[in-house]
């Protein structure tokens, strides 16, 4: 029991540290950059008097001593308050919350497509030739900018063949092309790692033992090597989620879809610091959650990582 508790405590501690680190980093980052945030926010063209700027500064709480700002900032975060958007005059949580759904839909669908695609390729591309072809396709997909893939798919399938509607959120079919676009690089990477893991596992001595029992390729893969490959792929989970989020920003722009991508982009160009901070913290939260799930899943997949009961060990037969 004790090792389990200490492990949970350790995980909880690292979760808190990462979140706190991200919050502090965001806070520091904006204080460190040169230039007065208010002037930046208003833009170089604005003809505003110093008094008005002071007023805005006081309103936003930027004139208080830094340490006080830091603690009130942390305090607000703990209450779930991410501040208010400079531009939209709305709570940041609301700004993010409104657009979150569309992005989540897109990302979730892309993830499912990616996993299915990767599994199918890893399982069915068996021969040397097909493995070579698949490896080549994966290389090209991973070397292409995801937004270019989106553009290509758009011109071929939407504009060219007319199979899919081009835009508009009413029609559920509009999510398919963007989801496929987003899924392709993830599927390529996942497929590579999965296949590599399976191939490496097949070279192990225990694979010979399995074959010596009379097992065929199907049994070897399904009961043995797939699990080894999956364990390797799991280490990528956080990276893949990050890839999906980053890709979502680009894909939403290509297909003109609403979502966090639009929010992020306008926040960056408008220098809307509270929203940017909110998005950074949100990403940190997602990262932390995914990592937590992965850490908990590792011992499930690889029993060697489970704590060994001291009584179980025997030194000699």
């Amino acid at each position, binding site marked *: 029991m004790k090792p389990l508790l200490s492990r949970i405590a350790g995980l909880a501690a690292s979760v808190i540290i990462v979140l706190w680190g991200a919050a502090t980093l965001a806070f520091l980052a904006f204080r460190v950059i040169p230039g007065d945030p208010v002037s930046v926010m208003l833009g170089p063209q604005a003809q505003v008097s110093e008094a008005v700027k002071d007023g805005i500064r006081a309103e936003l709480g930027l004139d208080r001593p830094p340490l006080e700002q830091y603690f009130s900032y942390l305090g607000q975060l703990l209450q779930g308050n991410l501040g208010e958007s400079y531009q939209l005059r709305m709570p940041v949580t609301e700004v993010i919350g409104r657009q979150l759904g569309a992005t989540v839909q897109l990302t979730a669908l892309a993830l499912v497509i990616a996993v299915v695609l990767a599994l199918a390729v890893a399982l069915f591309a068996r021969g040397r030739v097909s493995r070579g072809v698949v490896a080549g396709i994966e290389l090209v997909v991973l070397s292409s900018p995801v937004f270019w893939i989106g553009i290509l798919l758009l011109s071929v399938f939407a504009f060219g063949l007319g199979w899919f509607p081009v835009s508009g959120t009413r029609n559920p079919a509009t999510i398919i092309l963007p989801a496929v676009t987003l899924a392709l690089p993830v599927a390529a990477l996942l497929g590579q790692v999965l296949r590599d893991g399976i191939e490496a596992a097949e070279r192990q001595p225990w694979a010979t033992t399995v074959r*010596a*029992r009379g097992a065929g390729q199907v049994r070897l893969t399904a009961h043995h090597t797939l699990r080894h490959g999956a364990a390797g792929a799991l280490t990528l989970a956080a990276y893949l989620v990050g890839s999906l989020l980053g890709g979502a920003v680009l894909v939403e722009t290509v297909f003109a879809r609403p979502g966090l991508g639009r929010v992020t982009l306008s926040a960056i160009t408008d220098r809307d610091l509270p929203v940017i901070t909110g998005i950074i913290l949100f990403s940190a939260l997602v990262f932390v959650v995914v990592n937590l799930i992965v850490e908990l899943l590792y011992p499930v997949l690889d029993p060697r990582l489970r704590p060994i009961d001291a009584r179980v060990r025997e030194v000699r037969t």
Partner: protein
Amino acid sequence: MSALVVQGLSVTVQGMLLVDGVSFEVAAGECVAIVGESGAGKTITASALLGLTPDSARVTADVLSIDGVDARAFSESEWRDLRGNRVGLVSQDALVSLDPLRRVGSEVAEPLAIHTRLSRRERRERAIDLLESVSMTDAARRAGQYPHELSGGLRQRALIASALAGEPAVLVADEPTTALDATVQARVLALLRSIADAGTAVVFISHDIAAVRRVADRVLVMRAGRVIEQGTAADVLSAPQHEYTRELITATTHAPRADRFGLGDAVLTGVDVSKAFAGAPVVDGASFTLLQGQTLGIVGESGSGKTTLARMIVGVDRPDSGELRWSGGPGAHRVQLVHQNPLGAFDPRWTVGRSLREALEAGGVPRAARAARVAALMAEVGLDPVLARRRPAALSGGQRQRAAIARALAADPDVLVLDEPVSALDPSVREKVLQLLGRLQRGRELTMIFISHDLDVVAAVSDDVLVMQDGVVVEQGPVAAVFAAPQHPFTQELLAAGR
């Protein structure tokens, strides 16, 4: 009717003839051993018996009859019916031969899942029965564990159980005990013998003559793909006909060294030396004396603390308590180490010559003299000077070991510590290296500390011996005395296992 009949078996891989006309028979209840050095073709022969040769291999035979079935022109799916069912395989080192992500019980029951229609519960019960039949205590609990949770000996038993699950008529065991400690080896070999006695035809492949002696009825000696001698175990091992077989046998049995005269004063005295890693004691109160010109052997199994003791003597680690007293004070003697793994001890990107020059530089030899000294050192250890331009990976095991010795000698030591210097070498190569060490000791008046788990080798080279178990020196004394009349039960066990 023999369970296994092989006649004229030949295997060609990429134009190279690796197995050339091998013929032998194994009857039910018989154990036939195939011995030979590495590269003799033993493992490829074993693979051919299961149809597991590499895709690029061409296998031909006049007769290949496994449990009465003619397997010469078998397709892959026909082989799959045979494997696990009529012929089983036990490999070396169960730690890597069992799927680490699957429970022991599932691994043992897998042949049943492939070849029978038993339900999952029935399979599980059969698995437990099988584990009990290989003398695994607490079989039901073990079946639910993972391979890494079992000790080496238990794992090997589980591997054997999984090979027997399909009740094959023929069991091919390829070096099944090589990765185990001596005492554990003895027990697993006894298990294999009992399996043969119960009616299975066992093919036992090994390079370890002592193990073969315990288990085999008949012996085949292979060299470069051919069978050069065949006969009953008694005949081949005690009265070998062929020159090569004779070489092989003598290379693996040594008489303990007679007492030497002319040993000097104490060079090093170890007093109650102890060291612990992470709270667990690794060396516990070791005391010994090392005389000038002597060879002190340190014997023990893995985890006995012998390597840690060696590292403390060389000066890499420091004892937590106790003292290592060098005559003349610390630093008065030059101590060098010959590593267990010469491949790892050389920088893989450097040529051997460059590594030797580095050693000479560290020893203070002026630049101008280095080239000549490198040549001299290589000649001293019997290496062709052209090898100095090669990288360690391009040398054979024996050559690498000689290079490692040369490098240790470059610093002109008077004490040489050798950690398992010949364990990874073939018997004939081993002989030559041991002879070299003897010559070097006499020529340079070296004092040597020789660490090994192989009693036979230690007996051949050492004057005195320390026997270590779990960090403690359980027995010590002149090697002839200790081996003739061991006092401590562990020493007795070790000697019994090696015989």
